[in-house]
């Protein structure tokens, strides 16, 4: 510890100070997190230039282009699919299959949400599914509360399974050069087991509210045929999405970046649908993209000050020992999860990436650390109502539906969500430990 402190320079302290200051602004939400990150980035570049540890050129090159383009490409794909009504069609169709059983309805809806979240972002998925679920529950005379909570949680879990399912995965995949198949192969099975475990736990937690009401009609009151508002554009956007999926499966063989794959899909979609570019670009989540770019610049400043390398070298002494690697992974997973219950998991992931990369550069097998990080930040979001944006959307939807018994309070989420998060982490740790060789 003494040797570690001796190596800390003024530049490192300044960069750490700017990072901590920016993160305090982000996490306290005194101002919008994108604005806070932008201010932090500007201060970091200014301080770096003044004290000679970070140049403007280095700041620009710190922004991971693959992450930014992959994220924006997927956002554009969503803006093409969403207005067509295709996702509503899927939700209604799935709900009709389970209309006579509230329990089966919950399982089927969660399955549809999880699968959709594997390909599209969780927020879009939940924004579409949550209000439809409330309406279906009102028609079925069942309390929407368990459904909303379960959908948010399984959306977060489903997103962990793929390279494009969750923003932290996009960043991890880009930094570690993990291809789509490798991500799906390593995360898919563990996510499937955790998903099943979480569903069983949720069904048990809400068993009292999932009993079929007297006079359950078996109708969900919605006609899926009328859900599709634009069949032509739905067909074209599905063609584009299908091509993207196919290319994701082989992008490593073709040596093309996942971000390029999404833009191939965007180009095909644009050629077929011919949307108004102004309209499409207006719907992009610019604050999210700005937030990411600014965080990359902030963390780049800390990296160029040498602080992250120093932390990485200190951790390497511990992690280099193969006996300790599993323990390091589990600690990373649990710390990532616990921090993600109350803090935004994106800044944490962006900060951890250069540390893990540094461990890799000094000979530590970082592969299991990437998986542990992805699992930790993904599962941690289920612990509290502010752990993930999908949770906040479902809480808001529960407040909007004018039913006192459906209202999801922060305390209720903590009582139901925290056990789910802890159980999923325990299950995840067990699987990770037993099949550790698979994650190497």
């Amino acid at each position: 510890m003494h040797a570690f402190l001796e190596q800390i320079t003024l530049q490192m302290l300044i960069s750490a100070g700017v990072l901590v200051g920016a993160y305090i602004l982000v996490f306290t939400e005194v101002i919008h997190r994108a604005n806070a990150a932008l201010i932090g980035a500007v201060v970091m570049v200014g301080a770096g230039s003044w004290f000679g540890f970070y140049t403007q050129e280095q700041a620009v090159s710190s922004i991971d282009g693959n992450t930014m383009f992959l994220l924006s490409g997927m956002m554009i794909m969503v803006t093409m699919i969403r207005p067509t009504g295709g996702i509503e069609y899927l939700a209604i169709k799935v709900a009709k299959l389970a209309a006579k059983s509230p329990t089966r309805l919950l399982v089927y809806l969660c399955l549809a949400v999880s699968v959709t979240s594997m390909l599209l972002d969780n927020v879009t998925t939940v924004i579409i599914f949550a209000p439809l679920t409330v309406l279906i529950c009102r028609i079925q005379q069942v309390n929407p509360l368990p459904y909303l909570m379960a959908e948010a949680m399984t959306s977060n879990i489903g997103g962990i399974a793929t390279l494009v399912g969750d923003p932290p995965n996009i960043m991890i995949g880009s930094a570690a050069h993990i291809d789509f198949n490798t991500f799906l192969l390593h995360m898919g099975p563990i996510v499937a087991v955790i998903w099943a475990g979480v569903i069983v736990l949720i069904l048990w937690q809400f068993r009292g509210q999932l009993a079929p009401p007297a006079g359950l009609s078996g109708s969900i009151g919605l006609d899926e045929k009328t859900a599709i508002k634009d069949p032509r554009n739905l067909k074209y956007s599905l063609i584009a999405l299908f091509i993207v999926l196919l290319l994701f499966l082989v992008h490593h063989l073709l040596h093309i970046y996942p971000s390029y794959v999404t833009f191939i899909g965007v180009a095909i979609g644009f050629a077929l649908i011919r949307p108004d570019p102004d309209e499409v670009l207006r719907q992009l989540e610019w604050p999210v993209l700005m937030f990411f770019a600014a965080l990359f610049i902030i963390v780049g400043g800390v990296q160029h000050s040498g602080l992250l390398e120093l932390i990485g070298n200190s951790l390497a002494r511990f992690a280099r020992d193969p006996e300790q690697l599993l323990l390091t992974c589990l600690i990373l997973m649990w710390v990532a999860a616990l921090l993600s219950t109350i803090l935004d998991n994106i800044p944490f992931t962006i900060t951890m990436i250069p540390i893990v990369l540094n461990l890799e550069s000094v000979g530590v097998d970082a592969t299991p650390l990437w998986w542990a990080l992805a699992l930790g930040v993904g599962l941690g979001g289920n612990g509290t109502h502010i752990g993930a944006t999908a949770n906040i959307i479902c809480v808001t939807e529960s407040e909007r539906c004018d039913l006192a018994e459906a209202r999801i309070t922060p305390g209720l989420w903590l009582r139901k969500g925290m056990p789910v998060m802890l159980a999923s982490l325990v299950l995840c740790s067990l699987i990770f430990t037993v099949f550790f060789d698979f994650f190497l």
Partner: protein
Amino acid sequence: MKLDNMVIPTGVARAGMTVGAAFRECLQHPVSSIPVVDDHNRVVGRFSIHDTLRIACIPSVAIYYADMLSDNLGGITMPEDHACQIVGLPIDTFIMNDFATIHSVSPVVKAIILMEKHATDTVFVIDNGEYKGVVTIEAIARRMLEVSDD
């Protein structure tokens, strides 16, 4: 066309009045909205059949998916006992703050503009602080037909 030819004199609603009594006042004239006045007879709000049914009878989430609804709406129904309960409620929770007012000497087109702005089909006519009646979109259309027939 003069606006004062189209004014429909109605009664007013007051806080504490039942929904049933307000409905009867509307249907008697017939208009879809009537003003809500305070103890000094100042217009302070609007009671409308449309808003009352929206608030009392339908889950807000259903509106967005209205085109997808089938005829079997299970739990979202309005049985007789629910209807009886609604008409017995005080109007207080159904009073809208957003209402349009106009003078009887104002041009007709101003009434149409105000209706568009406030997403309503009624405008309350008030002269010197005194409520005179309601101008409805139907009254304007009726007057247009009368002028054309003349």
